[in-house]
């Protein structure tokens, strides 16, 4: 009997897992189809750009400065440990920030702030029948709610990543100059010599995919919230967890595909 129960439990979890993947993919497909109606929802799209993106700037600002600062400090510590010259500090920190730190950390912060917000908002609308009300009025919730949010995430994450790169480099520069005694010129020359436009573009491509993941997962979880406050809370947590895990997995896939060893 225990074997039977554990097998059926695994089966149920498997079905739930695949139906979630299928449901999320279907939602993304329907949202992309609704992009054809963007002019009709343009005001909503602009509102979401501001609400989701611009309002995230203060948080990204604080996090990016400190990420850059700690990256410079830790790199200097490792350089000292292996006896590497500090003139390479700008080079090492610059690469790490542009390729990995800014896109991934900005996306995870965005998933925590914006993904949770979208899932909670749509989840509340679902359990209070506001989404049913929209449909009953002949308004497509995909066009009205989902498409503007997914599209805003798609555009705002790369924008925030560019912002995060500049601020992280600024944070790293400040720590290098003030705390590690590397001259400003040495740091910036190192950064410039390592900067490749290809890395920057790859970072932005990754960021767009992360944005798509955050928006789609959050909308799907919100739309599938059940029950009351507990169900909304659960869908919010699930949205953040799934988005963060998917960001890290897809980041690894990008690393393998874009940066050949």
């Amino acid at each position, binding site marked *: 009997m225990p074997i039977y129960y554990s097998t059926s439990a695994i089966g149920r979890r498997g079905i739930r897992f695949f139906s979630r993947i299928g449901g999320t993919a279907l939602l993304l497909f329907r949202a992309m189809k609704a992009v054809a109606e963007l002019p009709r929802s343009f005001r909503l799209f602009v509102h979401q750009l501001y609400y989701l993106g611009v309002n995230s700037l203060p948080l990204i600002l604080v996090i990016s400065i400190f990420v850059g600062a700690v990256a410079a400090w830790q790199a200097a510590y490792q350089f000292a440990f292996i006896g590497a010259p500090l003139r390479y500090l700008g080079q090492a920190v610059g690469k790490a920030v542009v390729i990995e730190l800014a896109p991934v950390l900005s996306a995870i912060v965005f998933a925590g702030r914006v993904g949770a917000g979208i899932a909670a908002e749509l989840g509340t609308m679902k359990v209070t029948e506001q989404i049913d*009300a929209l449909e*009953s*009025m*002949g*308004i*497509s919730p995909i066009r009205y709610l989902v498409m503007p949010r997914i599209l805003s995430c798609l555009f705002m994450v790369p924008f925030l990543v560019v912002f995060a790169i500049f601020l992280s480099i600024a944070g790293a520069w400040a720590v290098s100059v003030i705390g590690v005694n590397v001259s400003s010129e040495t740091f910036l020359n190192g950064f410039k010599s390592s900067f490749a436009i290809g890395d920057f573009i790859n970072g932005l491509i990754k960021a767009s995919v992360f944005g798509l993941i955050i928006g789609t997962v959050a909308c799907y979880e919100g739309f599938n919230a059940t029950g009351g406050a507990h169900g909304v809370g659960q869908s919010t947590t699930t949205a953040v967890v799934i988005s963060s895990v998917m960001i890290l997995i897809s980041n690894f896939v990008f690393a393998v595909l874009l940066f050949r060893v």
Partner: protein
Amino acid sequence: MTAIPRISIENVTKRFGSQTVLDGVDLQIPQGQSLVIIGQSGCGKSVLIKHIIRLLTPDSGRIVVDGEDVSTIRSRNLPDFRRKFGMLFQGAALFDSMSVFDNIALGLREQRRHPEKKIREIVLEKIEMVGLSGSETKGPAELSGGMRKRVGLARAIAHDPEVMLYDEPTTGLDPVTADVINDLIVELNQKLHVTSVTVTHDMVSAFKIAERIVMLDNGKVAFDGTPDEVEQTSHPQVKGFMISSGIRGKH
């Protein structure tokens, strides 16, 4: 020759997991009739009403509206189909982020058939009809339960629907406010000459609104008759329901 019913519910079954909520429901609703569906909480009343407007689809059976099988309507034609209906939701389902005015105007704006000036006229007229003039700029959070229902009602009738669906219109309201909502529904049904389907477990409301009362029990139609027939019936479930509602004495 019998007239084609406006809404025809044919052998509809709906399950959620292992629970059968609707079990072969058959119901014909003629044009202009005010039908009230009663039954205990969880008996599938709200589920049934949501099938009519295809917010839910049946596992088997079909819903036919104006001779058209609802489940075969293509998704691009669904908005036009749904605009035949106006629906008042149980908790009013007002959009939190919008004012009373915008809640009522949303459907009209999205329909894009009227200029903003005309929309304003319509919205103010509907707000006046439900007795909430002066509340246009308030947010849903500033309204009482009764006011929210009235805004929900104004929103449901903003586009002059042909069929009204009311999901528990008086639930959670005090008797005086509930009576105001009942009067409004009766007045609207008479003024707009709509077909209406009301789901409720409030028997006072049912008697006030209904031309016909149907009782759902265990996912099936247990009773179907006029309010007079309901009052006189010896049907055990209906009798029990009336006694529990305080409409009839135990003897």
